[in-house]
């Protein structure tokens, strides 16, 4: 993104620009939406939220996106839920990216070397990754989530972050191995530069593009994972809204009150699509040879 040519490539990619716009719109909605909501996201309105058929009212002036099962404003809950869902996804991605980058770069840079002639750091790290990858991601997250007190946003993003770094580690390992063999990196090492210096000066800048792309796509995966956890009842406890929990609570009345599912469903689809397109656009812009 720092290279003007990359910026130009990104701007020419209509899908990427659209994805960025959608992500930006969702962030704005999450930040500012509650300010424009007519109701508190956590308070029921039994005076106006109950329809003549005793079902929650549909979209109307007082409830722009209708009311939910507990007769709360879906608009307000969607915005507050957006804050939480996006916060969890982005926080989890930052944790996963940090761990994934550290493990991937360490494994890739130390590949083929043994400490004290015995310890194969790359082998140990990658076998550990392989073992964790053998578990289905959601199953692993659910198992950890069930074992822990899973009622806070912090717990959720820690669980997601601590289990979501495996793919990044593999990709960055491969990228680091490639960079490590470049002539100027070999020369730098031959001149006796410390390993940390070489990593910071040469490796990190070269893997940054891949890391940003992976992280952007990972945000989308985290949104889905958080939604699935909430949908399965393993997310943040009510009444705190998350998009997945809203989806879950609305499914029972899907036929009669489709807005309860449509609003969070659309938000999840848009967010996932937006972050995926943004990530694809960044990949094409930052690494055109691979496009």
């Amino acid at each position, binding site marked *: 993104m720092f290279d003007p040519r990359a910026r130009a490539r990104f701007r020419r990619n209509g*899908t990427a620009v*659209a994805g960025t716009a959608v992500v930006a719109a969702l962030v704005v909605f999450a930040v500012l939406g509650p300010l424009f909501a007519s109701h508190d996201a*956590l*308070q*029921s309105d*039994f005076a106006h939220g*109950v329809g003549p*058929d*005793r*079902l929650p009212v549909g979209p109307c002036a007082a409830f722009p996106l209708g009311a939910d*099962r*507990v*007769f709360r404003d879906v608009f307000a809950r969607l915005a507050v839920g957006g804050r939480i869902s996006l916060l969890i996804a982005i926080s989890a991605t930052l944790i996963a990216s940090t761990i994934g980058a550290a493990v991937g770069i360490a494994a890739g840079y130390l590949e083929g070397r043994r400490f004290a002639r015995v310890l194969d750091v790359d082998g140990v790290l990658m076998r550990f990754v392989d073992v964790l990858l053998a578990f289905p991601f959601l199953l692993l997250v659910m198992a950890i989530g069930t074992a822990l007190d899973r*009622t806070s946003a912090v717990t959720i993003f820690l669980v997601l972050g601590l289990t979501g770094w495996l793919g990044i580690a593999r990709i960055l390992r491969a990228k680091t191995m490639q960079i490590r063999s470049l002539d100027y990196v070999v020369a730098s090492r031959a001149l006796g530069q410390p390993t940390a210096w070489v990593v910071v000066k040469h490796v990190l800048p070269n893997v940054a593009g891949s890391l940003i792309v992976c992280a952007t796509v990972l945000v989308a995966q985290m949104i889905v994972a958080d939604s699935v956890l909430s949908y399965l*009842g393993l997310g943040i*406890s*009510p*009444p705190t809204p998350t998009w997945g929990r809203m989806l*879950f*609570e609305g499914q*029972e*009345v*899907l*036929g*009669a*009150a*489709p807005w309860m599912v449509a609003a969070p469903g659309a938000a999840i689809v848009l967010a996932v699509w937006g972050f*995926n*397109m943004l990530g*694809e656009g960044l*990949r*094409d812009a930052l690494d055109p040879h*691979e*496009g």
Partner: protein
Amino acid sequence: MRSIRTRAEPLPAWAWALLATVACSQSVPAPMPAAAADAPPRRGGELHLASFADIRNGLDPVVSPDGLSAGPMHLIFAGLVDYDAEERIVPDLAERWEVADAGRTYRFFLRRGVTMQDGAELTADDVKRSAERALHPTTPDANASTFDDLVGFAAYAAGKADHLEGVVAEDRYVVAFHLAKPDATFPYLMTLPTLRPTCRTAGDRYSDTWLPCGAGPFLLRPGDWKRGVTLRLVRHDAYFRAGLPYLDAVEWSYNMTQLAQRVRFERGELDIVRDLTFADASRFVADPRWSSLGVVEADVRVYGEAMNTRVRPFDDVEIRRAVAAAIDRTQYVLMQPMTTTAMDQALPGVVAGVDASFPHQRYDLAAALEHMRKAGYPYDPATGEGGWPEPIEYLAYDPGLPALTSQILQQDLARIGLRLHIKLVSFAAFLAIQQREGGATMSQGNWTLDYPDPSNVFDTLFASSAIDPSGSLNTAFYSNPALDALLARARVEIDPAARMEMYRQADAIVCDDAPWAFTFGYHAFDLRQPYVRGFVPNAMRPLDATRVWIARPAPGARAPEGAP
């Protein structure tokens, strides 16, 4: 790495069709065709039912029935007594009974010529053998202590006696149950499956490989119970009520989602649907073709917010009273208006002797705030200052109604300065935590009546004897010696009027002490195809298929317009 480019492809036609179907599926199809309303009963046909859950505890009557096993168990095993349409106890396998020895002896005179499903005739020895099998210490049953008033029960349950002294086969067709003290609830206990006569194939000890076999109207054949999938019972041709049952078979499907049940019901593959979502039920009821085919069953389950009286802050009766007064029960029932009724006392309407005019727990916010003040934790709603200083953990299970009602409760209690932190767990974890002493500070309690007598609610939920540190049905761990004494007297009181007066006093004590804040009663809502005929309304046996028949139209009759 090659880029995988994604394009914004338009949605395919099938996706639009699916979306349109979901968005516009407000109308319901017509009921399936049926014979004329005055068509006489006829033999044949099958009844198909379904549930989203599965039988948990098996079909042996000695094992506590769960919500799904009770129906099939009742059809396989007839009892000495049963309920009529007004929930009165009437003879069934017994042709009559007498009470002697000032309420300490119940003597049952069996019908002659009753053929069990193994072809043998029912005798008093079968009744005694079945009772001893059910109450034997090796039988894995939580219900045995229900019969601890039987003479000799303690010695038999401890393995110190070979036979149960209190059950005596006086001759081939007369069996007597001797009690250590009078027990007005004993006839109700005999309606439970536990002591129902079993075939001699059951032997005299419990075995989990036994094929259930009794004297009921339907029998289970080998291989007809596929655990978790289907259970099929076929007609017992030698059933003692001549001409019954009409149906060839009754079949239940298990673990079927609510959506699948609705679709299969609409297609006529299920004859009754009981697990409709509230929204789907509303749509059917709103349709004039279906409105008369919905059946609202009686409230047989009572719900309340159980407060652990041994844990702060609910060890303070004023806090409990504040909670009971702060709950607006009319809001609760909006979560499931088709199946819930607001309740402010311990007894659902199906229980005989319920006094609806009695002042029970009522919603009164000012009174609730006054109770908080008396407890020493005044709360000012205008400033939000005061109240109980710590968050209170509220245990609920998910998915389920408590996950929704807990959010209403949280708002109600916030108005009096009690802040709830909702903790959702699985149903199994919920039960384990709730029933353990100190496990849950507050949780949703519910109780499904085993029989429509006040003792089943009070003795089970609020008596000190129901407290068990490892698995307590008294989930509030509430103990009140005055209530215990009153319940003990009521249990042995033979005069119905005097007994009911005692339970009114018990109700007043429980409502005032508020170990539970009662919230709503629950009833099932059934939707039945119009060709399903013959159900006898009965709160305790809502889907008793004994007298049911299928009234399909005669071949060549025209189906109504819109029928699938």
